[in-house]
């Protein structure tokens, strides 16, 4: 199908884009279009106006420093994935980006667009939530930061207001004593996952002090669970991993849909939780070991 008619503007500056948005309550931002254009073509969305931000060069950047990775609104998934410094500062971002759709989609889709789109089946919102990241948003009346915890309200619903543009997503750097991992199960390479899990594990003196995991395609919104309680002795054992799976399933209450039953999702949650916690723990130990030697 074809999109319904809409007005189209392509501002050259952020200020101009914000003005147009403020003046047109029926306008929508067009970034990479890899989610919005299918919605238009299927007529699941029919905004009166599109504000194409692809001409705003100032939003096209990936900057990394000791604090973390700052991704501008026009940085494509592929650019962020290919950024060596970003991979070093926060490896989880690159691990997850590799699972976002196919390379062809990643050449056009933006990482910030993925955050704002707030799809419960998307990888990047989970990464942002697990890392306690944030987005910087601008409107014609000023700027504000939204913490990941306050960002994802419901399925495909973020807390951005209609007249706001997300200008940057901030992914905090990996701590010196932390390890991360990402894994997912999808029916076909590049498909949305049936279940995906990101893990963040911290160690101290050779023992686990924190285990947190984030889940996609399990609940309506990206969901972070603290599994530290499953590792009271600070070590990874088969029993502790079983407990971690129990904790995760209890916290998540997986849903059935046409892609997978709730029972199958529970199994995926357990299996993937086990895998990513083991991998993130190994990653943390190797990083701490490298620091000591």
């Amino acid at each position, binding site marked *: *199908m074809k999109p319904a008619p809409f007005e189209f503007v392509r501002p050259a500056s952020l200020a101009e884009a914000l003005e147009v948005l403020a003046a047109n309550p029926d306008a929508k931002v067009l970034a990479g279009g890899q989610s919005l254009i299918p919605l238009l073509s299927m007529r699941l969305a029919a905004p009166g106006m599109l504000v194409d931000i692809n001409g705003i060069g100032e939003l096209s950047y990936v900057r990394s420093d000791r604090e973390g990775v700052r991704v501008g609104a026009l940085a494509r998934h592929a650019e962020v994935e290919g950024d060596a410094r970003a991979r070093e500062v926060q490896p989880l971002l690159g691990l997850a980006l590799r699972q976002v759709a196919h390379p062809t989609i990643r050449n056009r889709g933006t990482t910030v667009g993925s955050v704002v789109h707030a799809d419960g089946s998307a990888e990047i919102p989970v990464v942002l939530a697990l890392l306690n990241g944030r987005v910087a948003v601008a409107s014609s009346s000023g700027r504000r930061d939204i913490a990941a915890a306050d960002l994802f309200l419901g399925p495909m619903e973020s807390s951005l207001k209609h007249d706001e543009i997300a200008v940057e997503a901030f992914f905090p750097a990996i701590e010196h004593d932390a390890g991360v991992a990402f894994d997912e199960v999808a029916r076909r390479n590049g498909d949305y996952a049936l279940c995906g899990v990101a893990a963040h594990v911290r160690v101290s003196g050779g023992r686990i002090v924190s285990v947190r995991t984030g889940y996609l395609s399990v609940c309506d919104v990206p969901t972070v669970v603290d599994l530290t309680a499953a590792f009271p002795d600070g070590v990874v054992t088969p029993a502790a991993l079983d407990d971690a799976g129990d904790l995760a399933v209890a916290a998540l209450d997986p849903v059935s849909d046409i892609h997978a039953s709730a029972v199958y999702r529970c199994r995926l949650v357990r299996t993937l939780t086990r895998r990513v916690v083991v991998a993130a723990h190994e990653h943390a130990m190797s990083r701490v070991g490298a620091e000591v030697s």
Partner: protein
Amino acid sequence: MTEPLHDVRLSVNGVVHQVAVPARRLLSDALRHDLRLTGTHVGCEHGVCGSCTVLVDGRPMRSCLMLAVSASDYEITTVEGLADEDGSLGPVQQAFKECHGLQCGFCTPGFLTTITAGLEENPSPTAEEAREMIAGNLCRCTGYQNIVASVLRAAELKAPQP
């Protein structure tokens, strides 16, 4: 109400065109209907099948997921632009012919553009990497085996002769 038209510059296969299109014209439709470059095929029109893939500044992108009005700044290459100057088949096209990489041919334009870009990035892929390269394109006929073979053959054809 008649729909307003936008004047759009489209640079395709090295030729600059000027078209007047409504804002909602997909790039795939602008190529096919306005420029009559019907080599680019349209299957699903929501990004899944890959048959509409074109090169945008050399990178593969879905033309069904871009608006023509957003495409002015780019150099676009369609399957029509993959042949050599004298009209003979480019290396990826030649490989598809030799290895029977197509049957009905519907999916082929998207594979050819995707593989052309893929071999720029990785000029000598393994069979596994060849599979990975084409994972975003669907083919209902071939079973993919001959397409993988075509990727490997195209890499050979493109390699500088010793």
